[in-house]
């Protein structure tokens, strides 16, 4: 079941179209990567989902029903442009926001303390926000996004400003929550986080959706039928074998002395056919498909549009 659906959303500011007929389906318990270059319309889309702004046309469904303001309690949000009330104490700040999210004061108090303990910052409870470092504030902001046990959490560039240790802590928390049924929408430029965390992705560019779906399927779709083969080979292989492959790279690996060959299979050819050919020519040690990473897909898609 899809926890969130965006249907035919349009949004313009004056004569500038920011979102153009956007459709998205976010399955329950997914970590859904929302990708796109700067100014693509990601933040606008997130704000429409959050009901911070209204779309000109289209609708957003939450669990199959048009989303209402009451559903906002089930949403968590970590905006990219984020801040806190500098003069407030950490504890009361979290308490205030938890109450705005509909929690009763005594429950909120327990939940706030529990999260501060979990993120190793319970000592900050009575400290003013302005006394915290930027990284510490980021942690508090992450707690704000998750503390009211939302079912759907939108994180806009969640890792910016974190050191590697805290990044790992946040990643583990995301995976942990996902295991417990929480769905995430992750908007980021860090492709390694997308590779590591997301199982669904969508790419928006110039107000339009370019592509969306399961990350692995998208990768398959963009795979170019390229394989890397390593082995011992004394003969010289032909550059092309008609109807089977063309050889793209051919080198000897320095540290292993193995030959490294990269083949592009011709259309419709299977790996077994290549292997059948190769076993007569060399001793194959390993073979793997070279799959494009999200970074390559992102760049190639964005560049294609720019060139059009």
């Amino acid at each position: 079941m899809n926890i969130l659906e965006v249907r035919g959303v349009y949004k313009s500011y004056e004569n500038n179209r920011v979102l153009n007929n956007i459709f998205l389906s976010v399955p329950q318990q997914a970590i859904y990567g929302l990708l796109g270059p700067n100014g693509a319309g990601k933040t606008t889309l997130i704000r429409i989902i959050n009901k911070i702004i209204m779309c000109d046309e289209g609708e957003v469904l939450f669990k199959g029903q048009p989303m209402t303001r009451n559903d906002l309690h089930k949403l968590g949000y970590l905006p990219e442009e984020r801040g806190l009330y500098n003069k407030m104490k950490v504890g009361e700040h979290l308490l205030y926001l938890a109450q705005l999210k509909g929690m009763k004061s005594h429950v909120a108090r327990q939940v706030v303390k529990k999260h501060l303990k979990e993120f190793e910052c319970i000592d900050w409870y009575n400290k003013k926000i302005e006394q915290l470092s930027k990284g510490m504030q980021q942690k508090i902001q992450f707690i704000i996004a998750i503390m009211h046990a939302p079912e759907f959490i939108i994180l806009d560039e969640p890792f910016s400003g974190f050191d590697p240790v805290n990044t790992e802590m946040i990643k583990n928390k995301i995976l942990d929550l996902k295991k417990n049924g929480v769905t995430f929408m992750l908007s980021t430029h860090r492709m390694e986080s997308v590779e590591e965390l997301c199982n669904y992705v969508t790419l928006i560019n110039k107000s339009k959706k370019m592509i969306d779906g399961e990350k692995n399927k998208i990768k398959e779709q963009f795979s170019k039928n390229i394989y890397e083969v390593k082995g011992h080979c004394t003969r010289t292989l032909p550059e092309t074998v008609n109807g089977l492959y063309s050889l793209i790279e051919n080198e000897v690996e320095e540290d292993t002395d193995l030959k490294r060959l990269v083949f592009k299979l011709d259309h419709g050819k299977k790996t077994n056919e290549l292997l059948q050919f190769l076993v007569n020519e060399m001793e194959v040690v390993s073979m793997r498909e070279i799959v494009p990473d999200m970074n390559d897909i992102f760049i190639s898609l964005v560049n294609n549009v720019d060139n059009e």
Partner: protein
Amino acid sequence: MLIMNKIGYIIGREYMVRVRKRTFWILTFLIPVLYGLMIGFSVLMTKNPGIKLQEVNVIDYSELFKDKLSDNDDINYVFMEKGTEQGLIKMLETAENQHVLVFPVLDVNKPEGIKLYSTKQAATVTSDKIKADIKNIIKDERIKALGLTQEVIAQLEPDIKLDIKKISEEGIEDDNTLLSGIVAGIAGFLNYIFVFIYGSLVLRGVHEEKQSRIVEIIISTVRPFELMLGKIIGVALVGLTQFIMWIGIIAIISTAGIADLSMIAGNNTGSSELSSILSGLSNINFPLIIATFIFYFIGGYFLYSSLFAAVAASVDNQTDMQQFIVPLSIPLIIAIISIQGILQAPNSDLAVWMSMIPFTSPVIMVARVSFGIPYSQLIISMILMAATFIFATWIAGKIYRVGILMTGVKVTYKQLWKWIFYK
């Protein structure tokens, strides 16, 4: 219900954050203390305007004043030998608080040529007192010449008191023009100050929220309009709290101060004006004035602070803010400048119009109401005020909602206008 809860939390935060600040308490106690000092100072001034005892050396060629010019708190008369005036005048060059008063041979019916020499220009208080003393003695001499006794004179002196009445909708009332003027001036000025002080608190609060970027987290839970309203109400409550505390503290200080003033009024028969002011206090319709004051404080504050909030939400920096705040504040400044004229003619066309226009009425109507005005005018003005502040809050909410998310945009009036119509 849920919405009300949320606005409640926002109001609570806005209120607590400000009331807990040290500056709130300093201001709360400082203003009455300053007020107390002011009262104390004026009481002191009434008792003793700071003039030292003056010694007046009298040379009397007329022989009319000997033993008749009597000393008082401020002046000591010393009669000197005839012909010593030149030496005395020379002495004045080095002595302080010394004067030389020379009476030539006088015709009581044409008293001319009396001279007063002083080191510095004699303070008017001193010369006035001397003049009054001389006048009384000459008057007595003339009466004596006419052969009248003091008793006859006392019978001749009529005691006239003009009982000024004012015809209003309630019939004929006592007039308290002077007192009404004082109360009106204070009320109008207070409202002006309040609208500005608390309006700028809202302005600063919204600006901080935008700068610190907390706002996006908040408005993913509550509507921008709710956030704005919560802030405005929260700050208004801070204002009312401070106002009530001021009234309380000032009441205590004033009771002491007025008791002191009454004592002076009682001791000094010349201060009958003061006594009449004190007794006139009971003739002023304070409940109406206070109710009007609170209504126009709330109305004016909502009107201005919501517009201030819209401006603070729209612009990024202080300089740009001034560009919008200054034109917005001009009506209020015009109101406070014209208040003196309004107090002199509370029913002039200008006064009536300015008390109708909601941008000036918070000052002008509050001032006019203590003079007693037709209720029809008050009601029309109140309706206009209420309608305008509701409309302004609504418009401000529209601008606020768009502006608070815009950063790095140089805002123009044209843009603000467009934002009102954004979906």
